[in-house]
């Protein structure tokens, strides 16, 4: 084995610079009770809130054993008159009644930096992927105040999810908080994961760093998602913070805050970050468990009184910073699971009131085959078209109106034969739009593809296409446009707008040529194109 001279030099330097620490007074306490992940410590009169407390598990043992053992920390969360209650961040079986507890003088912090990219870590940044330990000279506290109003600017830059229904009608901007809400098995995680995967289509200088926080999930699910990221090459710009259902409730409670600190490091470098909290319902349950064990008084549904503050202070850390502060951003996609579609329950209403919009996924739509199962009527983005590219703005508003009209008329679909021609045409158009908005898992559409498909649908290009063939027709159209006029894709990709000249080229040249090439899709009496917008 080759001798690492650099390492030896570093060790020699450390030895030369070392001087034994001077004895100094430390604040200590004694564990009087331990159970359910909570320790009660007598003494520690100078403990501060959220201070890290080191539990001495090696007292009376040889020093070599203490070197090998991992330090056991607890976080002080209840400061009472004569005792301190702290939640353990490790195995409680290592704690004995009478063990000494030492105040470290530091609040809970995590290492942050570039070396977290591509890693799967615990909320304390311990590696879970078998890789080396995370070492970083920079540490951020887990609890940090959010940026004040003066340090922020309006959300203007779009975040492309690659999902047409979202990018067209519920656009998300960089720095926004957009809630993904729905029942179990409606595709919430899929929407979030597909958004992360789609970021590899962004040019490197514009690509956001992604953080996926798994809270209380099955380890098999997280493993499957990590595999998806690796296979798609997304891990190079992604951090996965994992607190599975088998982790102590304290770690599940800390996970999103720790991940937020990791994200804030990049935001403060002027970069954009996308953070997914999957999911905050389980986070609320973990916090409820910790609070009940700390004997805090239970409120509605046994949640503690500050459950709103838990999520509001977490989500307020997502922001778009002003140019003076670097211009970085954190876009948050929190996920909430509802029961039987009840969005008026306690935790869902809390989070809806905090976020800047929601994407509502319905089980009925999912079962009907509309996937992503987004209920466009109930979903909203409060940032709106400010977060859309010019290209998408040019085509999306018409589609939104068509779909809204279709939803109103949908109830009459069963009477199709009794309706007038115009109403029937509107219904069929709406059905084709719904079909167009369906997308497979990990099937990402670039901005160019989305704009061309929506524009074509608005202009009635698919009006002669059977509904079940709309998806195929749209894909073939995109390929046709790329082959016939490469400048159109180049313009949309580079300038991200959709000027009249480009629209005219599509209307007057490309679309007619496409329909000539596919006569079975040509409607016999096609309505005249509605003109350039």
């Amino acid at each position, binding site marked *: 084995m080759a001798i690492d001279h650099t390492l030896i030099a570093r*060790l020699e*330097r*450390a030895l030369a610079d070392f001087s034994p620490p001077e004895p*100094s007074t*430390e*604040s200590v306490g004694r564990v009087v009770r331990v159970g359910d992940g909570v320790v009660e410590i007598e003494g520690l009169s100078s403990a501060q809130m959220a201070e890290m407390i080191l539990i001495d598990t090696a007292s009376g043992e*040889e*020093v070599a054993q203490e070197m090998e053992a991992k330090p056991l920390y607890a976080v002080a969360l209840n400061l009472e008159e004569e005792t301190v209650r702290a939640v353990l961040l490790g195995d409680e079986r290592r704690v004995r009644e009478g063990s000494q507890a030492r105040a470290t003088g530091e609040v809970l912090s995590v290492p942050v930096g570039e070396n977290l990219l591509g890693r799967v870590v615990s909320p304390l940044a311990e590696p879970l992927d078998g890789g080396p330990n995370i070492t970083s*000279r920079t540490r951020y506290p887990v609890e940090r105040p959010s940026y004040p109003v003066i340090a922020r600017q309006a959300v203007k830059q779009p975040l492309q999810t690659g999902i047409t229904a979202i990018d067209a009608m519920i656009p998300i901007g960089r720095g926004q908080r957009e809630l993904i809400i729905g029942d179990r098995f409606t595709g919430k995680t899929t929407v979030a994961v597909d958004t992360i995967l789609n970021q590899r289509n962004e040019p490197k200088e514009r690509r956001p760093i992604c953080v996926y926080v798994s809270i209380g999930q099955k380890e098999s699910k997280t493993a499957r998602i990590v595999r998806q990221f690796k296979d798609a090459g997304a891990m190079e710009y992604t951090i996965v913070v994992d607190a599975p259902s088998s982790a102590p409730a304290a770690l599940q409670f800390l996970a999103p805050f720790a991940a937020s600190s990791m994200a804030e490091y990049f935001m403060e470098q002027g970069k954009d970050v996308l953070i997914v909290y999957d999911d905050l319902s389980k986070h609320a349950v973990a916090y409820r468990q910790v609070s009940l064990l700390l004997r805090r008084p239970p409120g509605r549904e046994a949640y503690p009184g500050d459950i709103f503050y838990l999520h509001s202070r977490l989500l307020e850390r997502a922001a778009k910073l002003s140019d003076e502060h670097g211009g970085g951003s954190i876009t948050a996609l929190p996920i909430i699971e509802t029961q039987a579609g009840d969005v008026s329950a306690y935790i869902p209403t809390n989070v809806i009131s905090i976020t800047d919009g929601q994407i509502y996924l319905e089980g009925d739509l999912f079962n009907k085959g509309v996937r992503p199962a987004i209920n466009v009527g109930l979903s909203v983005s409060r940032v709106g078209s400010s977060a859309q590219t010019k290209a998408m703005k040019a085509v999306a508003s018409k589609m939104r109106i068509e779909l809204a009209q279709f939803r109103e008329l949908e109830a009459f679909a069963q009477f199709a034969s009794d309706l007038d021609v115009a109403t029937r045409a509107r219904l069929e158009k709406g059905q084709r739009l719904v079909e167009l908005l369906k997308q497979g898992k990990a099937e990402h559409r670039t901005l160019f593809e989305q704009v061309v498909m929506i524009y074509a649908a608005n202009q009635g290009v698919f009006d002669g296409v059977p509904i079940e063939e709309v998806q195929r027709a749209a894909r073939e159209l995109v390929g046709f446009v790329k082959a016939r006029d490469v400048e159109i894709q180049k313009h949309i990709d580079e300038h991200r707008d959709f000027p009249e000249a480009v629209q005219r080229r599509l209307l007057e040249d490309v679309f007619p040529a496409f329909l000539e090439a596919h006569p079975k899709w040509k409607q016999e009496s096609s309505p005249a194109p509605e003109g350039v917008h």
Partner: protein
Amino acid sequence: MKPKQFVESLARAALLQLERGEELSAVLSGMQNYLTRTHRTALLRFALRALRAQAVGRVRRQTAQLAIARPDEAAKARAESRAYLTRWGAPESTPVEAIIDPTLIGGWRLVWRDRMVDASRRRAVLALYGALRNAARYDHN
């Protein structure tokens, strides 16, 4: 008030009386009379248990624990640790319970109430271990 809180409060009051110099027998009979008057005689044994626990805790908190690595270091350890007790405001009469703990390697460690000072070689060895481990992980230059 829950019974547990009640007996702990009663025990605390009894302890205060003892610290003021009252006789143990008087304090105990006073406690019994009070419980009889308030029809809570069933709580007497719990109150006595709480009084004992609080008294033991009070003594433990007032006593300083001095762990010494080797018997031949005892005199030096006592002298050095006394300086710290004085600095912390401990009365002259504070009892010091000394034990031999060879795992300290050398030196001593003093604990009084919620304060500790560790002047053992074990602490120095662990600090050296930490410094070398950090140096092995990354370059400080």
